[in-house]
């Protein structure tokens, strides 16, 4: 088995309520790029953290260079030659490139004085090996994100890493920067480094990787050679047919147009986005992470300011609204990040529910507590939320129950339009289908609904019409029988292919 550097054998990791990794095995060979793909919550990041020593697996083992190894932390991993390159870079902007490469492991004399010359020389060597266009003395804070990433990769050279794990490395890179990164990755590969490549972006995966391992719900669905497979097969493995893919779609009875967006733009995020949605209609917004979906709806809602474009509410031009104005008109946004944008975690369900509509729950600025309580109880039973009481801090609830409170806080004011940004991310299967049913129910009651999701079956299952977004632009629109996975994949990857060419 000398052609395997690192082998994961039957790792299981359980968090309260979820089996994040279920008997996962896979291996990395020297000089290969091995993709790890799966939907959000499939267990990729847990697996990666287990490799870097941030999570201790419940069972199973890591075999590194032929011997069972326990990785105790990122530093230990780095010293052993396993390097994790996070989406959020672990650099200190105020320190120089050289200092960042050797962060915490600087060469010093007995008295703790830096051996700057040695540090520079070693760092230069690593940078040259990668072909970086900057020197070791530059302050990292002045570098672009792509260059900062190079600094992290230079650690692989500096510590002669055998395994490098990339987590969504292209999330904030331009196309040229991406090409440079791929060039670098091929360089590492040629020197026999084993590379794990985690990404949502299928075109990249087919471009750079040798093998693909697909994770779903914490289990390995299979490992395939990239050359012997195609996008459809991988996507199918990711999505799976066995899960409860039973979606309820609302009856297609549409009323008046509620929202129309024309040529909305925000530089660097999205350009010329136009769409509209009617009463009783569920509009799906599909795109990979980073396509600009959340940014568009946040701009419509007023949390972000657009550079240009128009927003019409029931036919009237509403210029660029503030969140308050949007809410008062009847718009609701269930944001992408429940904990950061959706809830005040230390508040209870009652207070979170009324937070966006304080004026509805008050007279002369005095809160109407009975009304708040009644609303809380109404939605607790309607959405079957499991909580001990109106004032139990929502931080103590499960993800699914938290998400239901985010829904409750918007539904209680009878919105005309509800935007759901990744409404089922990171929640259990039961809560998922409850939310899918709710979406159908809302549309049948005459609400306009926009659903954003990177889960294709979800988008296709609940929507009447789907927009495909890629790199900040709407690239296609599908309706009726055209709403197929093949078409969506085509639209998104074709566009990406064009952009890359």
């Amino acid at each position, binding site marked *: 088995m000398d052609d395997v550097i690192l082998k994961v054998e039957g790792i299981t990791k359980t968090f309260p309520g979820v089996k994040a990794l279920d008997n996962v095995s896979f291996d990395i060979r020297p000089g290969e790029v091995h993709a790890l793909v799966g939907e959000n919550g499939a267990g990729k990041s847990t697996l990666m953290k287990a490799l870097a020593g941030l999570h201790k697996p419940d069972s199973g083992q890591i075999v590194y260079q032929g011997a069972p190894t326990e990785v105790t932390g990122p530093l230990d991993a780095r010293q052993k030659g396993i390097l994790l390159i996070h989406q959020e870079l672990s650099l*200190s902007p105020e320190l120089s490139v050289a200092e960042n490469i050797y962060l915490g492991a600087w060469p010093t004399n007995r008295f703790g004085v830096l051996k700057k010359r040695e540090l520079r020389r070693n760092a230069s060597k690593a940078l040259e090996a990668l072909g970086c266009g900057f020197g070791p003395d530059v302050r990292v804070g002045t570098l672009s994100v792509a260059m900062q990433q190079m600094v992290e990769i230079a650690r692989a050279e500096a510590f002669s890493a055998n395994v490098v794990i990339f987590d969504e490395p292209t999330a904030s890179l331009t196309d040229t920067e991406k090409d440079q990164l791929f060039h670098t990755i091929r360089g590492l590969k040629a020197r026999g480094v084993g590379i794990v490549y985690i990404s949502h972006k299928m075109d990249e995966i087919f471009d750079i990787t040798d093998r693909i391992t697909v994770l779903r719900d914490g289990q390995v669905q299979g490992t395939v050679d990239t050359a012997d497979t195609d996008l459809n097969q991988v996507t199918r493995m990711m999505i799976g047919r066995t899960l409860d893919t039973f979606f309820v779609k609302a009856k297609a009875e549409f009323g008046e147009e509620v929202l129309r967006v024309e040529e909305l733009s925000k530089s660097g995020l999205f350009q010329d986005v136009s769409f509209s949605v009617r009463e009783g209609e569920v509009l799906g917004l599909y795109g990979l992470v980073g396509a600009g979906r959340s940014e568009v709806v946040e701009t419509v809602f007023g949390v972000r300011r657009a550079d240009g474009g128009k927003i019409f509410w029931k036919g009237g031009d509403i210029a660029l609204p503030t969140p308050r104005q949007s809410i008062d008109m009847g718009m609701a946004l269930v944001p992408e990040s429940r904990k950061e944008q959706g809830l005040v975690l230390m508040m209870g369900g009652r207070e979170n529910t009324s937070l966006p509509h304080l004026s509805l729950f008050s007279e002369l600025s005095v809160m109407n507590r009975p009304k708040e309580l009644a609303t809380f109880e109404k939605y607790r039973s309607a959405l079957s939320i499991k909580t001990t009481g109106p004032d139990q801090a929502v931080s103590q609830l499960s993800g699914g129950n938290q998400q239901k409170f985010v829904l409750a806080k918007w539904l209680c004011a009878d919105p005309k339009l509800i935007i759901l940004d990744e409404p089922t991310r990171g929640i259990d299967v039961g809560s998922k289908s409850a939310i899918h049913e709710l979406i159908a129910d809302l549309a049948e009651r005459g609400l306009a609904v926009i659903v954003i999701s990177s889960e294709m079956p979800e988008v296709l299952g609940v929507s009447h019409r789907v927009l495909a977004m890629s790199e900040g632009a709407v690239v296609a629109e599908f309706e009726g029988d055209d709403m197929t996975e093949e078409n969506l994949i085509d639209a998104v990857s074709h566009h990406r292919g064009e952009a890359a060419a």
Partner: protein
Amino acid sequence: MSLATESQTGSPLQSVLGWLLRNHIWVFLALTVVVFSLASPYFLTVNNIGNILTQGAFIGILAIGMTLVMIDGEIDLSVGAILALASALAIGLQDHMGVWPAVFLGLMSGAALGFVNGTLVALSGMHSFIVTLGGLIGIRGLVFVYSGENALMVQDFSYTEIPEIYIGPISLTAMLFLALALFFQWVLSSTRHGRETYAVGDNIEAAHDAGINVKRHKIINFTICGTLAAVCGILLSMRLGTAEPNAGKIWELWTIIAVVLGGTRLQGGFGSMWMTIGGVLTLAVLRNGLRLLNTPNYVELMVMGGVLVLALVLDKLLNHKGDT
């Protein structure tokens, strides 16, 4: 940081401009010097410059420790009280054990209290603002417990002559301040501990992941800060010949003002002794200049407040990456 900026850009002019953009306090300092030189004939004299340096040195020595702590992303509100305790011990213990042992114990009291602050911050996870706010109140209590309500007087007046060493117009106190500032600038830029300071303040997760012992690191910086506060207190006791129990009251505020004025950020990760020297000198020049112009002392206080807000606004405009 000198390492980074010097060789980063090609032309020397560019690197000077780059340095000034990061250390804009020096431009401001130059401006104030020019203004006061024009306004008062007594300002730009050798003697007065010596005065400014000596006057600024006390806050300056406190500011050195504060800078280290602030680059770490922490704060130390207790320096004024530590200063008073060290000064009281240095004078009060002299009669029992002689001058230098007393001075040494004064220093040790500062180091010990700094260590206590740092340990409490590191072990409890409380914000240093709360820990040292407690210290600010409590350590002042210690001073009163030790010295009572009256000032302690030095018996042997040769003690007050110790700092009366001058090189030209520059007093020993001023020299000590400059030497310490340069030394700690060297520590910041050239030692493991110094680079850790930036790493911890910049990105504490990355520092921790890289194996830096963040807790021990913070304890060391709080200890340094406490020790330097004691140095300041002892110099003050030498200069005055007495130790007032209320000595150094609200000096922690002046110190924070000086450091922030220099450009070091409260959020941590950014700053240097060059900036702090600039801030300290600017503060000293403003106070000295306004007094030379015989402005009433309220003007000084109001100008300080105004300048500080101005510095914040300027910093926001020049480096609008404020929240990293």
